[in-house]
């Protein structure tokens, strides 16, 4: 029996196919993993500018008088650090501290927030958020399929983009955003990203998709696929949901200590356990890995110390910037010190690895 699953398409699908991209199923979407070469796309982002279709990700609008109070309860980061025109990275956690999703929200006004969530978690997040509104004045609208999203990343992103927009990009600081016109078309533009380079993430109504893609390509951006997105974020040590964080790993275990805020006098979901973990430490922790032997490590490879299993690789692969194998592993905390040598099981063989400091590379 053939099981045919209809994959969803983003408004940029035809561009990807026309460019000869290899399309894969990612969270139910047909997405480009690479156009030509992951390494070339990766290098384009590190040296010039790349453009990523991230329209598979979710976009919610949160409106109402109690939005800030509501987010203070469901998010672990502190909304008091926000102000209008600024965004914030955060996790929403379960009561036991493990992660529902990691996401970014932007404060447009105290009663209007825009939130970008992981593609695979759109339905779950929408439900989870709605479940916790209670009697608060909060209305959540799922804009994911009405709007599309592009990431424009690389050291040249400012110079390529500036001539196209009617706002001074130098005034948008990191994690801030603006609304402006791009060749006459209204966009939301934030100085955020997932590559470890300068750059922007933009969102706009689907009707402008083709024109905006064309404009950005003409401006000099190289289309880059999910393969490069993954190798870039791994070099920058940005956590990926389902890998470094998920519903059985907490942000503290993932090394995101700084996200867990005390928020005196405010209760939030997961607070008790996360504050305790932050103070007392955890039994396991995410560390950076290099290989001393030749080879490549991949997710779920098992990690040993003196023959005893101590954890597993959460993400691993080849770093095009450093030209060597890098990885992240969730291991027993007692082995976390930099320089600790360990063994990683690669197809029934053991390769020598070493704990190293992270990020592997970041230029923001």
């Amino acid at each position, binding site marked *: 029996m053939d099981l045919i699953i209809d994959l969803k398409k983003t408004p940029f699908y035809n561009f990807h196919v026309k460019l*000869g991209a*290899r399309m894969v199923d990612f969270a139910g979407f047909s997405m480009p*993993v*690479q156009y030509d*070469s*992951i*390494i070339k796309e990766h290098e384009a982002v590190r040296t010039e500018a790349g453009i990523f279709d991230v329209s598979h990700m979710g976009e919610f609008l949160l409106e109402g008088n109690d939005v800030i109070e509501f987010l203070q309860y469901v998010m672990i980061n502190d909304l008091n650090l926000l102000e209008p025109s600024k965004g914030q990275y955060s996790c929403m956690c379960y009561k036991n501290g493990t992660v529902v999703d990691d996401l970014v929200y932007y404060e447009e006004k105290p009663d209007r927030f825009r939130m970008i969530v992981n593609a695979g978690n759109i339905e779950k997040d929408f439900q989870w958020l709605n479940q916790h509104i209670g009697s608060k004045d909060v209305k959540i609208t799922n804009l994911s399929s009405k709007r599309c999203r592009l990431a424009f990343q690389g050291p040249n992103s400012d110079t390529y983009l500036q001539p196209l927009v009617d706002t001074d990009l130098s005034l948008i600081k990191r994690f801030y955003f603006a609304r402006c016109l791009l060749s006459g078309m209204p966009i939301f533009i934030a100085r955020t990203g997932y590559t470890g380079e300068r750059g922007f993430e933009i969102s706009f109504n689907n009707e402008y998709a083709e024109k905006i893609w064309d404009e950005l390509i003409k401006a000099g951006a190289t289309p880059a696929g999910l*393969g490069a997105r993954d*190798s870039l974020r791994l070099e920058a040590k940005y956590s990926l949901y389902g890998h470094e964080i998920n519903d059985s790993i907490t942000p503290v275990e993932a090394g995101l200590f700084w996200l867990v805020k005390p928020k005196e006098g405010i209760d939030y979901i997961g607070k008790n356990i996360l504050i305790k973990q932050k103070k007392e430490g955890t039994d396991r922790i995410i560390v950076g890995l290099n290989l001393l032997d*030749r*080879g*490549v490590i*991949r997710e779920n490879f098992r990690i040993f110390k003196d023959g005893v299993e101590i954890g597993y690789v959460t993400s691993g*692969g*080849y770093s*095009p910037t450093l030209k060597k*194998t890098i990885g992240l592993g969730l291991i027993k905390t007692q082995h976390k010190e930099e320089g600790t040598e360990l063994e990683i099981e690669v*197809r029934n063989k053991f390769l020598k690895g070493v704990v190293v400091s992270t990020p592997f590379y970041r230029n923001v």
Partner: protein
Amino acid sequence: MEHEFPSELKYLQTHEWVRIQDNIAIIGITDYAQHQLGDIVYVEFPEIGTTLKKGSNVAEIESVKAVGELMMPLSGKIIEVNTGLVDNPESVNSSPYGTGWMLKIEITNEGEIDELLTVEAYKKIIEAEKK
């Protein structure tokens, strides 16, 4: 995407190519296979002198995104590996039939040569796989 398949070579359904000179065979992966794997970053070779049966897994080919296996197209003894790939694994992508070759073996069962595919037969398999 048009791939190149030299007509003087023999092929395997699993996307290896074989160049036979007397009782020596040179082995690599096809243009189609390198394209499917993407940027190749490391090839793990067997030890010289190892004798392996046809169809056994002889090398691991790691790309940025995936890992592929090289199958022995014929039974034989490994007499040389392409050490040039240690520093330039990308040759497999840029020159799969040239500097990107992988192994040289001494054929131990010449009867197996007739079981290899001609370029026409291999092209038909690629067409079917693309559908």
